[in-house]
């Protein structure tokens, strides 16, 4: 299916805007000193990030629905939705276990770890489930095969990978002896994940039009 030029352009612009907004959100979370400061109250901060991720997903979904309703593979089938929910819960559980395996404390900050796992689920798995349904074939297509389609696939690919990479990199400053409040688990990892997500959006905003023009040999503007 050939995506329309307008669709790609809008998606690219929207990703760019979202990336800026999320970047601003991170800045505010770190800098402010009120009840929403991520350093003094990590759980609240993570909740805000989760909401932001969900909102972004929803907005993207609307965009998607407006421009390319046909490419929604499986539609709104109850079975699919139920399966998606199961997958998300499973993913959340897996992220929790993996975070603990990577070195998060087992009991001491279980709430924080859980919130971190939910955040990762929202940033990494939710977009995919929302757009492509609970299908392994689609998963392979988006993440391994990197199909020749451009569009939301690209955005999802970039954001998921960079969110994961960001949270991995976020763990690096934790052992350092800088005595900063944000070195506490999981603050730096949360910031890394959301920051990675925003970087991924930025990347896809740049990548989308370029890829489109090379694919279809047509120039924007």
């Amino acid at each position, binding site marked *: 299916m050939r995506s329309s030029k307008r669709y790609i352009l809008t998606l690219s612009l929207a990703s760019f805007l979202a990336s800026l907004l999320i970047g601003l959100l991170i800045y505010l979370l770190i800098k402010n000193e009120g009840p929403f400061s991520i350093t003094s109250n990590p759980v609240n901060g993570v909740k805000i990030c989760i909401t932001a991720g969900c909102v972004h997903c929803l907005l993207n979904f609307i965009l998607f629905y407006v421009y390319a309703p046909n490419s929604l593979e499986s539609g709104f089938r109850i079975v699919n939705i139920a*399966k998606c929910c199961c997958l998300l819960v499973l993913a959340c559980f897996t992220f929790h276990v*993996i975070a*603990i395996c*990577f*070195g998060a404390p087992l009991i001491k900050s279980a709430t924080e770890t859980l919130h971190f796992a939910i955040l990762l689920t929202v940033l990494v798995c939710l977009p995919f489930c929302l757009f492509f349904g609970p299908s392994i074939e689609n998963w392979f297509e988006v993440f391994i095969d990197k199909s020749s389609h451009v569009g939301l696939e690209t955005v999802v690919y970039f954001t998921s990978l960079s969110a994961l990479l960001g949270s991995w990199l976020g*763990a690096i400053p934790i*052992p*350092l*002896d800088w005595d900063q409040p944000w070195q506490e688990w999981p603050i730096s990892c949360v910031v890394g994940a959301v920051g990675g997500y925003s970087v991924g959006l930025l990347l896809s905003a740049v990548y989308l039009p370029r890829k489109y023009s090379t694919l279809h040999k047509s120039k924007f503007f």
Partner: protein
Amino acid sequence: MFGIKLLLILLLLILLTISGTLVFIKGFLLSRSVIETKSQCSPEFALRAEDHSHHGVEGCWMHGRFKRAIIVIIDALKYEFMAFNSSLQQNDVTHYKNKLPSIHQLLKRKPLNSRLYKFIADPPTTTMQRLKGLTTGSLPTFVDAGANFHSYAITEDNLIDQMLRQDKKVKFFGDDTWLSLFPGKFSKSFDFPSFDVKDLHTVDNGILTHIYPEMRQSNWDVIIAHFLGVDHCGHKYGPNHSAMAEKLTQMDAVIRNITEMMRDDTVLFVMGDHGMTKTGDHGGDSADELEAGLFIYSPAQITHTPQKEDENVAVAQTDFVPTLALLMGLPIPFSNLGMVIPELFGHCPWWDTGSNEIRRVYHRVKALRLNAQQISTYLATYQQIASDLPVPQLRSLQQQINKAESDVQNLITAMIKDGATDDALHKFIALEEAYKSYIREARETCEGVWAKFDLKLIVTGLLTVAVGVSQSCYFFVAWSNSDDSFPTLAKFLIGGSALHLFYLTLHMLFFPETVPPLMAVILALVLIFVSVVGIKNSPLINNIEMRRYLTIDNIISSLILIMNCCLFFSNSFIVYENAVTMFFMQTLIVVVFLKIIFKNFSVQRKEALKPDIGRQMRKSKAANYDLLHVITQPSTAAFIVIIICCIVLRIASSFYSCREEQHSCEDSTFILPLSSLDERTRNQRYLFSVFCIAAMVTAVRYWLKHYGNMNGMGAGVTAAYYGPPLAALFIVFHWALQALPQSVLDSFPRWQQVLMAQIVYAIIIVCLIVILSSPVLVYLLPTRTDFQIPYQAHFKHIVPTLYNQLKVQLSESEGGSSDANKAPVVYGLGSVYSSSVVLLVSVVSLLLALMLGDGIAPSLLLATVLLYLFLELYSVSVNSQELDSVNEGPTWSGIVMLSLLSTIFFFATGHQATIPSIRFEAAYTGFYGDFNTLLLPGFLIWLNTFSGPIIFNLAWPLLIFWPLLSSALMKMMVKRTFQQKQNEGSWKGDFRLYDNATLLRKHLFRVCCGMIGIASVKLLAAGCAAALHRRHLMVWKIFAPRFIYEAAFFTTSSACAILAFLFVLRVDSALSAFIRKLPTKKQS
């Protein structure tokens, strides 16, 4: 012969790195030059000052205040133990507070006769170092820290020598470290062995039976008693244990008895040589370890002002040396850097200092002045010999003392002229300050300089290690698989490095230190350059083959290795290294999972492209939602195995011990010895350990049986059958014995206490010898026509065995049976290499379990499980479709992961890269009392410390053999093509490698090169970090120990790698002997 050639190359690589390390250590861990000059009794400066030489006891530099001294050293006596806290209740829970009330009573009752000080030790806080400091007054250096086992006689000027020179008779009681430091110096000595830290009472009771009668005699001037009970109690139980209360109460009685027996001309010093941490250990430089206590008492008045109630004055440990020397009228030892304790010199009974303050100050200034003059002489002499002190600072120090000296002369002249005035008092007080600051600054200057580095040697050493690294990289990549002979470049490199080594040895042995090893540096640079060029031009990098090696796991594991090397440059990362390596390893496991998924997916794609199978798949897409279908997917199976692997790895972290720098960290409860636990947890933990060791033995047995390596009655098989369970049984008995309370254990004769462990040693040694002599665990079925049920076959395995036999018989009857053309039936041939390596590793791991003790041994079970899971995952990830995996050989990522695992299990066996975390008690498993040589206890401690790395580094040949086994678990995780499924009938296991001896050796060589390369690149990074941070605050505490550990780690892993290499060669030769003996097989 090919194998021997490869072995020699490997040895050359190891030798390069080790010699580089030695050169580096020589430049990095330098010691101070020792000056053997002794202080004379009447030097010029002392004579000039002595204006009241006719009062008191005759003395050398100053008149002596006391004729006799008693020095009681209570090992690890912390200040906290001595200070009395009256706010605490009588039966407070802590076992170490307020247990020395007699000190408190003396301070209260006779405030002018007693003083209590905080006694700050210099790190490292090991007993021998402290004794050197306490007698010579000089500063320690890092090098000496390792020599705690091997005391050397002190050649520097010291208190004992000075006492002898003034004809004082010294009696010694206690720790025999003193006798090795001062051989033949004591007029009478009662020494007791100090090495056995489990023994709380021998030394102390021995002292107590002798000290009182000896004190009553009058043939002594100085008594030195060194009690060890408190220290041993700390090591064994920690400070907060009822045994500590008993011990301290006993010490309290000692102090009371001695003070009651003392005469007026005697002074008593009670001191700790160092403190102890919260866990009862020492060696580092935390406040807990440094703050020992010092109590001074004499029946005669020693000071003019009583000590204030909660005033805790701190004095340095070296200050004891000049203080005792001047109090007894001895010369201060020549290389002393301590400062006299001024309060003790304010009172002079013969000069009416009580009423006259100016006399008191003058008396103090006199002592300080002698002290300062001695230090000045020492610095001048030192500068002539070593010239490493900074000249500008020395000059300013010289100016300070010259000024003070002229001030003193002027003041005295003025006083003689005008008499004592208020102004004179102020001037004296100013002078006192001037001398004090001089002494303090001199000491600081020396402290700053004596961590002196020889940059030439450091650079040469690092370059040599770098040569080792680059060459192992070269040999890892430069050899294409088709090639059989060495490339010319390889020959050049081997020759070059041999030359380099030869030159380095020549330089170190024969050239003076000042000649820079230019030749070696140039040679090293050339060698590195050539091998880098060689790597760039190697067939592997240039060919299209390169793409095959640029897989996700190889790239990420290289990145992780680089990060692991960067870790050594940051002190916080070194402190939390256990957590960081865990993080790395988990990442790599996840990456392996990704690789498996990619692989399965690509197989799926390929199958889907084939028309007939594709249709089938599309049909089955409808069944995609079936839960069972999802669960039996290979990727799901891999996912589950990965999660289990991650969780097992994480559980291993419950065996971590803590560094002192790790805040909010609690030691694993597994580290405590069994006898210190309460009864219920003790039983639970014991049963847990028994279960774990049983599981370990059973798992290996099951595996061997599964592959048919437990059949027949061959020597190797018998050893594998009976050895490990028997050894495990006696290990369990040994642990049970160790769990008994010490008092019960002491009632056994000594040989009974160690019998169990010695039986284990015997069994394991016999097993190892048998395995080496007949390493092939196969069973040739006797050619008989009737059915054979092999010995000891597990019920489960009988059916396939019978089936095989039936098949043989059927084919016989078809082809007109005759014995000649019957193929011989051999059990266990398909896993002939792996089974031998597995058996070797399991026997060695039992030995390690004994070393680690009951607490930590369960971590070996985790290591075994993890090794198994890792090998399975690794096999899946290297199992490829297009190429025969025999040819492809082991991958880089597998080697990196194996080395990471060995680092993790260094930590997960309760170790940390610090000096005090060495578990010296391991030397006593199976042995009792003193050793004649240090070789055996050193070896046992080494086994204990590096048990994790030893297991993983012995198991590396499995990286080659395991993928060939294609086990059931592996088949579950891999998506196979139909073709592969059809090929399954011709399973040959790792016996396939037997057909290609050169290839086998090449694979072995490459993996070994990889292991050595990784270990040496980490060593290089640790060395660079230590050299770069040589002026860092933490260098002696974090960077240098980490480097030392990394060097030991390199030695361990390369030694194990070589041993495993040799072992596989041995298996190979034994196997060819076995094959030759087989009845010649006729092809039908």
